[in-house]
């Protein structure tokens, strides 16, 4: 028999209820995201060669070093085993062009953590997706390397232009859907294989880590808005399926727009956010100067998240709907 009931000198743990907790915590969730990105990493090696691993490692390492240095300067506790800086590094590298310069990758990573996250106060306080901030900086600083696409190593099809979106936009050439699904096309390191992205993304949804509403809203929005234009003029505008599989749309839907910190809090807000991102992507792709617009669309909508949260407060139980 335990001493607690016999001994008068016992000590019991005291706490305010609840006394149990779900098995999930932030740290586990973050490492699950890292795990979910592995299919995309593997696909990048298959299509673009082993060198992409070096870019990924440089990006992750630069993110970790930046995080540690800034925390030291700010005299804050250094926590890197929560996986968040690893995710930023992974995400950034996967949205860069294949065979991208290593020094530029490192600069992007420093900007992603430094400007994208830490200036706002660190994890949980940033407004914009850090990886996308890093990429946006690189796009502005190195416009030519950022749009120089290496084709997959064993491409069978001859493409007149490097990425399906550029081919569509500038040459009006549509890429074969099967190649786009598998990822055997030109594009960013981790963005080309729809299959790999879907495996990781659906796993995160099934595990309850990312909210299914955001990717669903983005897909619905994309099919709806691009479908309207396609129906108006199927020769001029690409079909919705192409739009979904092209560029960084799927990767953005599952891994960028679903970032906990920079996406809306409420279910209704998530729907609005996802649909508006797709509206912007369609607008940029069809009418903007750039072939691709997922990055800017998500960054732009990140800025609206506080407002979306304000206007999508859930209805308090028992109160009439406002």
């Amino acid at each position: 028999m335990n001493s607690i009931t016999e001994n008068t000198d016992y000590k019991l743990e005291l706490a305010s209820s609840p006394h149990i907790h779900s098995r999930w915590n932030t740290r586990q969730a973050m490492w699950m995201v890292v795990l979910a990105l592995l299919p995309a990493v593997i696909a990048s090696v298959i299509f673009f060669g082993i060198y992409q691993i070096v870019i990924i490692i440089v990006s992750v390492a630069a993110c970790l070093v930046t995080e540690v240095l800034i925390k030291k300067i700010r005299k804050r506790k250094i926590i890197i085993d929560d996986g968040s800086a690893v995710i930023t590094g992974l995400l950034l590298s996967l949205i860069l062009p294949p065979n991208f310069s290593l020094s530029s990758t490192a600069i992007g990573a420093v900007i992603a953590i430094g400007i994208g996250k830490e200036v706002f106060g660190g994890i949980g306080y940033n407004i914009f997706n850090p990886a996308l901030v890093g990429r946006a900086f690189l796009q502005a600083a190195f416009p030519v390397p950022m749009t120089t696409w290496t084709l997959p190593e064993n491409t069978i099809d001859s493409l007149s232009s490097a990425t399906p979106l550029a081919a569509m936009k500038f040459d009006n050439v549509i890429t074969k859907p099967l190649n786009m699904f598998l990822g055997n096309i030109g594009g960013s390191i981790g963005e080309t294989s729809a299959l790999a992205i879907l495996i990781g993304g659906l796993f995160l949804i099934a595990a309850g880590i990312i909210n299914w509403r955001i990717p669903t809203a983005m897909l619905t929005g994309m099919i709806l808005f691009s479908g309207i234009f396609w129906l108006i003029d199927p020769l001029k505008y690409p079909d919705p399926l192409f739009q979904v599989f092209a560029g960084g749309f799927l990767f953005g839907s599952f891994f960028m727009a679903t970032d906990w910190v920079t996406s809306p809090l409420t279910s209704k807000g998530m729907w609005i956010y996802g649909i508006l991102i797709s509206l912007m992507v369609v607008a940029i792709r069809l009418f903007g100067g750039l072939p691709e617009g997922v990055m800017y669309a998500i960054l732009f909508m990140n800025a609206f998240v506080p407002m979306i949260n304000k206007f999508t407060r859930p209805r308090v139980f028992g109160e009439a709907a406002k």
Partner: protein
Amino acid sequence: MSFFSSFKTFKGGVHPSEFKEFTQNLPFEIMPAPAIVIIPLTQHIGKPANPVVKKKDEVKAGQVIAESSGFISSVIHSPVSGIVKDIHLEPTISGFPNECIIIQSNDNSDIDLMPQLDIETVSPDDIISRVRDAGIVGQGGAAFPTYVKLSPPADTKIDYVILNGCECEPYLTRDDRYMIERSTDVLNGLKLIMKALGVKKGVIGIEDNKNQAIKAMREIVRSEPDIEVEILKTKYPQGAEKMLIKAVLNREVPPGKLPMDVGCVIQNIGTAIAVNDAVTKGEPQITAALTVSGKGINNPKNIIVRVGTPLNEILNYCGGLKDDAAKIVVGGPMMGVSQFDVNAPVTKATSGILVLTKKEANAHTETPCLNCGKCIEVCPLGLVPTKLTRFSKLNMYEKADEFSITTCMECGTCTYNCPANIPLVQWIRLGKKKVIRMQKEKMSA
């Protein structure tokens, strides 16, 4: 429970591991009365009872030892026969010291009963006065005097009595066992409550993880055209009054209102049993049925004890604690109160004692809020726990009030689900108290 369960429920909520298997199949045992019982004068919501015995008085089991002191109050009977040793402050399970009558018991073979009433011919008024005289309080946790709930204002129209057989807290199996072992008495208790209120329709809501109870209750209500068993999805907090009414009748109780404002009276399974026993057997409420469970207790049990039995006597009766026991909780793990003194006594409304291990009890490290929205997704009342927590931390009580902080019923679902381990409901609890104080000051100003 299954993910695709088609049973009725409410929006939000979580499904913690149930751990009901520890005691689900164990019939009630009756624990012998202890040598000394400690009877707090506050075992109910409302005014403390007034003691009517003094030191060295001889009392008999079932004899009134403290009188009700107002409309919302309750009479208290001696659970044992013996001598009053003293009346003084003692630690209680609420965490606050309370005036208690201490009785040294001797012979407990026989209990002073009230006259038995006939279930068929008893009048509504007689049921209500018997429930009051037997000192019955709600068994669902809040311990609201039951006779008050049976005496609604004359202009209130009530059309449903719902018996709460959800028992949505993990570990607890008291109501489950009651429905299995005493289904007829549960039904008779419900019928008496319906008769007292003049209500035609009754529903017994049971979560779908209690197959035996569902079967037993279904069998027994077969001959009752106006009483139904409603199977509900197993989900916490399905047993909260507002959630139960929403699931069963699709009615929403507005903030600050009571179930009777939407035409319902909710009673717990244990309360129905107590009402039945008071009317048909003349028994005052001097026992408490409870589940003793958890990974830190040697022999988990469902037991019936005398009110006033100290926790440590019960823990010893259940084989004592295991070496890694670290926390003792009275009630369920989601809303129960952790104990600092094992001499605190069981009260009329105690439904369970849990012994949690070091592994379960250790607080998780809090990390920053990442705005994931998982607290909002599960809040059954449509609140924004992360915001309320921020307002509470920053002393922004006007804002907290604007965001309906006082609507929170402190079910703890948000804290359970928070991946950053932020003590959300704990902050909200604090903020809620301050907002209520602020409102009172405004009213009196």
